[in-house]
């Protein structure tokens, strides 16, 4: 019975609830901002990253560039087309230990285009809470966001910081 409990504890992944104060920032030449609404399911075990899973969404309409006209523009058809594609999805397929941190590979879906990406992230545990942090770059042309060229850089740096608490 004890051994069963130990095995169960070992294989049961830890569910984390996304806390307040998360930050989803993006930046490129001539455009930067944040997404204010982020939600999803985070299952993560430092001891067993292979059993971990991220399934998160970002509300496109929650974009904030700091400028009202840019916000409106960003939600229009040429850019994120928020009416037709209201969320950005990321679903992990593989999470593995990588150096002092971790590496996640998964499908990023923006504007109806799904593309596999892979990026490193860290997890800093603090008791029953913790913070995920990661940075990656996407090419907006891969997702048909805006027209190629123009003032807005094609390479978009995304910085994610997500505080979590154990469920």
């Amino acid at each position: 019975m004890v051994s069963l409990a130990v095995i169960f504890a070992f294989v049961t992944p830890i569910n984390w609830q996304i806390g307040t104060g998360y930050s989803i920032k993006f930046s490129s030449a001539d455009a930067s901002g944040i997404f204010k609404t982020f939600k999803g399911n985070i299952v993560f075990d430092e001891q067993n990253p292979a059993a971990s899973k991220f399934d998160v969404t970002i509300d496109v309409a929650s974009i904030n560039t700091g400028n009202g006209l840019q916000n409106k523009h960003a939600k229009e058809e040429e850019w994120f087309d928020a009416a037709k594609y209201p969320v950005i999805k990321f679903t992990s397929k593989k999470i593995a230990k990588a150096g002092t941190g971790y590496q996640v590979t998964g499908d990023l879906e923006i504007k109806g285009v799904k593309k596999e990406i892979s990026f490193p992230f860290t997890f800093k545990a603090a008791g029953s809470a913790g913070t995920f942090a990661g940075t990656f770059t996407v090419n907006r042309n891969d997702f048909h966001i805006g027209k190629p060229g123009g003032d807005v850089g094609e390479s978009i740096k995304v910085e994610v910081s997500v505080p979590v608490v154990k469920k």
Partner: protein
Amino acid sequence: MFKRSLILGLVAGLFAGIAAVIYQKVYAGALGYDFATIVKPLNIFAATLIGGIIAALGYWLIVGLWLKEKGEIIFNLLLAIASFATILGAFAYKLPLDVEMPELFPGLTVPMHFFPALAWFTFKPLFFKPVQK
């Protein structure tokens, strides 16, 4: 003429500042956003006074030194055009990302950009008598 023009500019700037601060209070009451951390009363008064001083220098140069009476319409046109032009800055202004509703920012600041010109035209008859034809 320079002195009168400068005093008019300062008076117009001061009253435009007062009007802008009142407008900010009314705006905050109506929409719940006053952008008080960005649009501070001190900044408002500095901007409207600078606007008034620039108008005073422009009036002195155009009407006082250059075109005399014919300069009135040119100056008025330039002041109106300049006021319109400055609203581009309000639309292009990038607010800190923790500001929730940047969409409401132009609604607050665009009218303020016309207050110095409005105050100038309002108080001008007290400083300069209309040209008799």
